[in-house]
């Protein structure tokens, strides 16, 4: 069930360490209608961004190093703007730090007025119960023109939904054991800036399902030939084949 404005406001009251407490800070609004809709809360764009970096290799491999290898950090203070080139995607974060209750999930959606400028916020919009942190936003400019983004502007909306049926809702908050998602190791816990992806190396990931032989591509195996990248292994195989072909 989607939480109503009244329900959201109720959950934002009380002791901060209560498992059922919803936190959204700082929430800048004159009156409730300012940021709350009947069933959602508007969120603003924060000042920190991760911009895609021009890679020094012809591919991107999602592995342990990917958190640092794909991006450059940028800070755009309030009052300044960031240009998102046409057909490019960047990572931003909400200005608001969020903590979801233990029995509430969330979804982040682009604000309709922003979407009409061909800016798409979020392609992985689901937020699990007990998530803490500023939400990392994947912001894509799918238009044919560069678009300016101003930190501090309302960019997306958060919709909250209660998890489980009526039986679960009857559980007293004290009885709810902290879910695994509250453990920092398993999620993106408490970031205040946008964060890059955290991956294991593919061989470690696949070992979990019993795959023991995983082909990987190391940078040293690649070399640049006539202006394009070539796989060293393929080159060797090709030359062996060519040699065999020449044999009488």
């Amino acid at each position, binding site marked *: 069930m989607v939480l109503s404005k009244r329900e959201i406001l109720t959950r934002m009251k009380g*002791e*901060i*360490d209560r498992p059922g*407490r919803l*936190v959204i*800070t*700082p*929430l*800048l609004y*004159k009156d409730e209608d300012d940021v709350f809709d009947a069933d959602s809360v508007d969120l603003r764009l924060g000042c920190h961004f991760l911009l895609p970096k021009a890679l020094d290799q012809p591919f991107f491999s999602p592995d342990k190093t990917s958190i640092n290898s794909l991006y450059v*950090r*940028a*800070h*755009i*203070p*309030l009052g*300044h703007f960031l240009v998102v080139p046409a057909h490019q995607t960047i990572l931003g974060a909400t*200005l608001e*730090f969020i*903590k979801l209750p233990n029995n509430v999930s969330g979804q982040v959606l682009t604000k309709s007025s922003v979407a009409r400028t061909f800016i798409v916020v979020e392609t992985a919009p689901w937020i699990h119960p007990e998530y*803490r942190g*500023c939400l990392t936003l994947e912001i894509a400019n799918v238009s044919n023109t560069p678009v300016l983004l101003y930190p*501090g502007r309302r960019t997306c909306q958060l919709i909250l939904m209660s998890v489980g049926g009526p039986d679960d809702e009857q559980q007293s908050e004290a009885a709810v054991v902290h879910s695994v998602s*509250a*453990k*920092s*190791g398993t999620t993106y*816990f*408490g970031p*205040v*800036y946008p964060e890059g992806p955290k991956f294991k190396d593919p061989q470690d990931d696949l070992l979990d399902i019993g795959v023991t032989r995983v082909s990987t591509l190391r940078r040293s195996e690649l070399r640049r030939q006539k202006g394009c990248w070539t796989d060293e292994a393929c080159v060797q195989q090709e030359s062996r084949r060519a040699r065999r072909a020449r044999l009488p």
Partner: protein
Amino acid sequence: MPTGLVDVLHDASVLHRFVDFIGEYCRQQTRSQTYVGSAAVFFRYVEQLAAGIQDELRREIERATKRTPRLATLRRNMRTYRGYLRLLHALIKPAADAHSLTIPGPLVDLASQQLQKVAGMANSRLLILLTPEFMYFQRPHTDIKSQAREIEGFIPSASFPPKLGFIEIPYSQGPSFFTNLAIYHEIGHFVYEELSHRNPSHRAFKALASAKERCLNKAFSPRASKVPAGTRNAGQTGSNRQAFALAEKILENWTQEIFCDLFALRLIGPAFSFALIEMIGMLGVSRTQCVTFNTDHPAPACRFAEHVKLLRDDEWWKEIEDLQAEQRQFLQELANIPIGRYEFFMDDSRRGPRRLLNAFVTDLAPAIKDLVCQLTTRAVPSVERFRRVRHDIQKAFRAGVVPLTDTPDRRDPVCIINAAFCFYLTAVTEVVKRFEEPGHENDVALHSKWKNRVEMWTMKAIEDSQVMQRYKDVQRYGPF
């Protein structure tokens, strides 16, 4: 072509190219990075200066082609430009390195706002520089400013930003928060230099000067006290005069250090003492060194004794007295060391005059405290407010959440910093236990990660408090 013009033309073109590079460098930096306000002002000044010098060189060479005597003047002017550019050169790169991704911007903004409230320091600005040294510094600015004034005579289009202080942060500490509270001490140096040079006849500084006088009299008694104050130097022998001048310099150094510590404490509360202890720990200062005065610095024990006195006066001490942290115990231990155990060694490892040390602690230190209190009346944070919100802030950290800034009390950045620092020192293990898998309580990497997280959340809370305060002000007073 007048004689010597070829040589001058060569020199001028080399200078022109040098200036061109510096101006372009500053332009590029401001385009590719964002800076806290004062850096942008500084870079704009350098750009204007560069353009001004280039114009001036063009004009002067043009004139010189017509009249030979102008060559000597041009040579002299170029020497002046070069000397000044050498000073600026040393500032530009460290300032360019200190962009908003490499320094704790919210803390610098907060410090700048607090600085504005210090008597006589309205409209002053801070320029942050990154240094390769593992130490915080304030780069003396009096020399730069006097040269800048001289240059303004030649290049009136570029005027040096008034009341600009240069604070250096070790580059490795840029992203951290709590250690960087040490910048408040350096801001103290800036304030002292600015006020004591600009207005030495300020009532508070006059009182300090006479306390210093008394202190010297005591140290050099009985002979010095018999000589009337104004003529004392004239009545002394050469070696005495030298010793007296040295003592005066040493006292001035110690005075500044205590002034800066107390200034920082008044503005930021006990968090500054903890930051200083952390810094001393990282520098590896031994217990013996803690009781030793040298010609530049009073002994850490003496400094912390003054900290505790001021913290007691300002009622902060009651709030941290029961803090179960090694840093608090260390602070108290050092403060409890009797004056008799202090030692004083000169630069050449000789023992320094004991009487000077005693006179400093008993006569001058109270006068320094009075001066600091007079200057910072409007900038002092509320301990009462800290008492009210401390537990709320710490509860937020325990819940893994950035502290809220929804009420005026909770928005007070000094309260947030002090509550956060106390949490950082005492309760990180609790959150590690709560949020990490069991059995990892003693994992140093996890502790480091969580300490970093508490720092990030503190910085976010400070940033939020600034955003929120601005928003509330606009709601109340309208846009400004």
